[in-house]
C-alpha cells in the first residue's frame, strides 16, 4: 500500500500537472496586482499588519515575485527555488490570514481581484485554499524524480 502511494507521488505526470496548476494560479493571481498596484497597496493596507513605509514597496515588488515564480514552475526553470519562494509566500499568507481570523479583522484579500468593500470569499475558504496550495508547493519542492517538459533537466 505504501509502495503504491510512493509510486503515485513519484509519477512524472502528476508532478507536471501540479507544477503547471500551481504556476498558472500564481501567474493569474499576479495579473490584477500588476495592472492595479494602487488597489493592491490598499489591500495590503487592509491587512492592518504592515508598517506604512513598507506597503507601497510590497505592492511594487510582490506581484512580480508571484509572476516570476509561477513562470519558473510552468517553464521548468529553477523549480526548487521557485517552489521555496512560493511556499514561503503561501506560508506567510496563511499566517496573515490566521492573525486576522483570530482578531476578527475584516479585510479585502486582494488575491485575484479587488472588490474594495471587504472580502467576498470567507476567510476560512481562503485559508483552506492556501493550505491546499502549500501542500502542492511542498510536493513540487520535495519531488525527487524526473521533471517532464522542463527547461532545466536537473531534478535535484
Amino acid at each position, binding site marked *: 500500500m505504501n509502495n503504491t502511494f510512493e509510486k503515485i507521488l513519484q509519477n512524472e505526470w502528476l508532478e507536471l500537472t501540479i507544477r503547471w496548476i500551481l504556476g498558472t494560479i500564481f501567474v493569474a493571481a499576479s495579473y490584477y496586482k500588476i495592472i492595479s*498596484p*494602487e488597489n493592491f*497597496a490598499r489591500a495590503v493596507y487592509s491587512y492592518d499588519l504592515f508598517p*506604512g513605509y513598507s506597503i*507601497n514597496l510590497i505592492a511594487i515588488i510582490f506581484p512580480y515575485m508571484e509572476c516570476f515564480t509561477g513562470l519558473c514552475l510552468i517553464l521548468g526553470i529553477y523549480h526548487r527555488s521557485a517552489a521555496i*519562494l512560493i511556499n514561503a509566500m503561501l506560508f506567510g499568507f496563511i499566517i496573515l490570514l490566521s492573525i486576522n481570523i483570530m482578531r476578527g479583522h475584516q479585510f479585502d484579500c486582494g488575491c485575484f481581484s479587488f472588490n474594495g468593500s471587504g472580502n467576498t470569499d470567507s476567510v476560512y475558504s481562503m485559508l483552506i485554499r492556501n493550505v491546499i496550495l502549500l501542500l502542492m508547493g511542498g510536493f513540487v519542492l520535495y519531488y525527487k524524480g524526473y521533471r517532464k517538459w522542463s527547461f532545466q533537466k536537473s531534478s535535484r
Partner: protein
Amino acid sequence: MKRVFKGTAKELMIIIGISVLCGFAVNAYSPKGIALFGNWDTSKGVVSAKPKSHGNYFFEEIEEIQTAKEIFDRGDSLFVDARHPDAYHEGHIPGAVSLPVGRFDEMIEGFGSRYPTSTPIITYCSGRECEDSHNLARLLFTEGYTNIRIFIDGYPGWEEMGYPRE
C-alpha cells in the same frame, strides 16, 4: 550538499533580484505606477498609495469637521456623497446629493443639468480610509466643476460629532 545549497541560494537571489528590478522599472514607467512610499497614516490625511497619475490634480481638503459644519450652516455649498447608494440611503449629511463614483458615468448627465459648473461643491465619502471623495472630485473637475473641496473625515466624522443627519 553544500553545492546544492549554494546553487539554490543563487537561484533565489536571481528570482528575487529580477522581481525587484522589474517591479521598480515597470512602476517607474507605468502610468498606473505608485509612489515608493504612500500615506498610510490616517492622522496625516486620507490614506493613499499616491498614484502618480493623479498628481496633476489638487483640491483643498477640509481637515476640521467643524469647518465642514460651518460651510453646511452657511448653506452656500452643495455636499456630494461619493459612497455607494446603500450607504447614502442608510444615512447622509442633510441636503447631500448622491453621486457614487461607481455610477458616475450614468448619473453625471442628470447631475449636470441640475447643478451648474459654478456650484461650490464639497465631496465626502467614508472618512480617511476612503479615496472615493478624491476620485469624485477629479471626475467632477474633468466635467468642468472648478469649485470643489473635499471633506476628508466624511460621513463617519460627521456622525461622530452628532451633527444632523437624514
